[in-house]
Each structure stands twice: as C-alpha cells, then as structure tokens.
C-alpha cells in the first residue's frame, strides 16, 4: 500500500513539475544562454558515446543477422534488418538509455546537490522558480537535441553494419548492395517513428531526473541515492513507454 502511495505521489509531483515548467515557456527567449548550455550538455557531450555505442550495435546486428540469415540464403537482406532495427528500436532505445546514464544522472546530482545545500531554497526566497530556470531549459534542450542524436546514431549504426557486412568474409556483401537493401526497406516513416520515440523517452528522462533531484531531502548521502533512483526510474519508464509509444505509432 505504501509503495503504491509513493508511486502515486511521484507521478503527481512529476505532473506538477511539468505543468509549472510549461507555464514559463514564454520566458524561453530570455533564457537563450541557459538553453544553449543545456544543448551542449545534452547533445555535444553525449554524442561521442552515442556514436561509439551505435557503431557497435550496428556491427553486432549485422554479424548476428549474417550468421542466422546465411542458413536461409537471405544474407543479402542484412541491410534491411540493420536499417529497420536501428531506426525503429535500437537507436532510440539505446540513445535514451545512454541519456539516462550520462545526462540524467548528472542532472539529478546537480539539482539534488543544490537542494541539499539550500541553493533551491535560496531561489525560492528570491522568488525565482526552479522550474523556470533549472527545468524548462533542459526540457527544451532535450527536445531539440534528441532528433539530432537519433539521426547520428542511425547513420553510424548503419555504417557499422555495412563495415561488418563488407569485411567479415563469411558474410561478404558489398556496401552498395547493403545500402540498396537498407534504402529499399527502411523508409522516412521508420526514421520519424524512431525520432518520435526518442523525443518522448528523452523528455521523460529529463523530467524524471529533474523531479527526483528537486525532491531530494536529507544530507549529501541522499544525493547518491537520488541519482540511483533517477536512473533506475528512467530506465523503467523508457521500457514501459517503449511498448505504448510503439503501439501508438503503428
């Protein structure tokens, strides 16, 4: 019973934070510097790890598909499998998981630290809402940066698959035929569906991490506990939302 109450309270405070943050949307043009800073934090600093991970996801997909599909004599379709899997599922999912671990944890640690060391209280007495200057720029930045990350993730993943398809001797498909099949079976709609998923996941990850950070109580030890809770909650939310968003986009 207490667990249900905790979940409901968490959901309630999440919705409250969302409404409060959105009520300050009009102030975004004046928060240009904060928005750019958050774009840098969310986009630029996450990009290298997203690229590396996506490359190897693409390679593993091609490798596994190559071994399996060879038995059916269908290895020339590896491009379609890598293309669709990256665009529709693995790109958005893995990028969001990385976002939760890399950016979400940093957001929670920063806001929890500000809460514990009374910086949030100082903002309150100054009548400067935390939702306005700490949450809104992050939400706006993640909405702008997630599609960029997803496009890069897809391209790098597809390229990783092409490298394996071309250079692993047991597969040995030319890059031209790999990309021809990929283009044939992976459409603009698939990429857009993936980007939409990533937008939803990224937005929820940032909102959850901000909310848990701002609701941290206690001393420095609680900062670590909040970071763990934020990452775990984000991962669960990504997986649960993945089903519903996929269903909606069908």
């Amino acid at each position, binding site marked *: 019973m207490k667990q249900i109450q905790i979940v409901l309270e968490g959901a309630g405070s999440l919705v409250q934070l969302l409404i409060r943050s959105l009520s300050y949307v009009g102030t975004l043009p004046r928060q240009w510097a904060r928005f750019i800073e958050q774009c840098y934090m969310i986009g630029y600093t996450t990009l290298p790890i997203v690229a590396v991970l996506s490359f190897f996801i693409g390679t593993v997909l091609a490798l596994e598909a190559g071994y399996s599909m060879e038995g059916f004599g269908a290895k020339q379709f590896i491009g379609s499998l890598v293309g669709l899997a990256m665009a529709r599922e693995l790109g958005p999912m893995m990028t969001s998981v990385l976002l939760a671990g890399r950016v979400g944890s940093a957001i929670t640690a920063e806001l929890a630290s500000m809460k514990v*060391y*009374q*910086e949030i*209280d*100082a903002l309150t*007495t*100054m*009548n400067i809402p935390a939702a306005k*200057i700490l949450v809104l720029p992050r939400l706006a930045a993640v909405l702008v940066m997630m599609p960029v990350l997803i496009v890069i993730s897809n391209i790098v993943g597809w390229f990783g698959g092409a490298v394996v398809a071309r250079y692993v001797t047991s597969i040995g498909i030319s890059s031209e035929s790999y990309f021809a099949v990929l283009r044939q079976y992976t459409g603009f709609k698939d990429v857009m569906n993936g980007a939409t998923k990533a937008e939803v996941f990224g937005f929820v990850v940032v909102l959850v991490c901000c909310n848990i950070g701002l609701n941290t109580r206690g001393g420095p030890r609680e900062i670590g506990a909040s970071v763990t809770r934020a990452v775990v909650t984000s991962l669960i939310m990504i997986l649960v939302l993945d089903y519903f968003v996929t269903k909606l986009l069908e």
Partner: protein
Amino acid sequence: MTQASCSKTRNPFTGAEADAVRVKVDGLSKSFGELNVLKSVSFDVNPGEIFVIMGPSGSGKSVLLRHIAGLEIPTAGSVTVEGLDPSLESTRDRVRLALVFQDGALFNSLSVYDNLALYPREHRAGDEHAISDKVMHALTILSLEKSAGQFPSELSGGMKKRVAIARALVMEPQLLLYDEPTSELDPVMGATISEIIATLKQEYSVTSIVVTHDRELALTISSRVGILMAGRLMSLGLPEDLRKSRDPRIIDFLNPKIDIEHPRFKELETQDNP
C-alpha cells in the same frame, strides 16, 4: 540600541523609501513525524527593528526562521508578513524578503558577481548597466569589490557570509532574515558581521530577524531578544531585561560556566534516558 521608531526602509541603491514590514508569528507549531520542533510560538516583530532569536542548538531557531521565510508550512498556527502568508509566490512579489543562509547557500556554478546579479536579471530590474552598478555598489558596501570574479569555492567562510549578505542586499529587502550569521567565524569576523547587520539597520531601517547563539551579537545590536528553548519561547524582551533575568536556564545559557566537577553532559544523558 533601542527599538526602531522608523517604519520606512530606505532603498540602499535608489534612496527611495518603502514601508518596513511587520511580522506576526501566532501559535506556531511544527512537527516532523513524532518530533515536535516548535510548540505554540507567538511574537510580533515591529517594522524596522532587529529582532534576535537565541537558543541552544536544536531548539528550533532555524526551523522558525524557515517558516518566516515561507520555506516551511506550519503544522498549526500561522506566520504572516504584512498580514500575508510568506509561503505564497504572490506574497514574495509584494514583499521583498531575503534570507541569509547559515552556509551562505551561494550558487556554486556562478561567480560572486553573477550570484548577486541573478535576482535583478530574473526580475528585470533594469538593464545590464544598471544591474552592474547595483551589484558593484552592494559588493562595495560589504568590501567585496575585488572578489566579484571569484567563485564561492574560492572564498573563505567569512567572505561567503558577506557575499550572502550582499546578495540579500541587492534584492532591496524590506525584511532581512539571518540564520546564524556569525557561526563558524573567528571573533573578529563575527564582530564585523554584527557591525554590518547593525549598519544595514541604521542606514536602511530594514526589518531584521537574526537567529543566533552569539550572545555578544544579541545583546549588542538587537532591538529585542527572544529565547527559544526546546521549541518554546521562554523569554521575550529588551537586551537589558535579558541581562537582568533571574531564570536559571537563561542565566546558564547566557553565562555558561565550565564545571569539571559536575559536567553538563551527565545531566543531558539523564534527560535523554530518563
């Protein structure tokens, strides 16, 4: 120092006068779970006075101050600033209220200058040139003009407290709250902070509430002093009245004597484990 008769605050930057504010604490009680931190505390703070709340550690002083700042919701009773609930955003729009936190609560990611400039920038109090003038003026009042470019992590404890006071000053407050402004400071720096509080009151007639267990600060600069013990207001009066008090608990609190033969911690053990 006598109780202030002036009921107008003077803006430290423009010289404009505004009404100093009155604070009313009425039957305030606060519990955290089973723990009753404040027990029906009542007092008024008159416009323009320095009201000092003293008491031993854990007596609920900071919790009381957080209620006045609107950062806590009372379990029972009420706190009003000019008749308004300080926890509401609308009250903070109408009454400029600043709190100097015990540890400064400076924004670590911002320089000293940006810490001070945050409030006027967010509330669009003039263009960047006017804000710069205001910030540098506040830093000059606190002799901090050379530290404008430094970050909080590069400052000493005393400097952090002065920056926190300067940041509060930039808000042009009508009510200035101080939480242990002289704690963790050497005696000279403690006296300096006390002088700053008294000067701000004399120059600008800001209503000030100071939470402290610094006896010198309380008896030297306060208009009135309240003694809080175990969540109850034990005494309320002028500093002279406090000096003449015959209450053994107050005498012991103000003039603690080190008694090796009968150490206090033995009594504390008995109180904690009856």
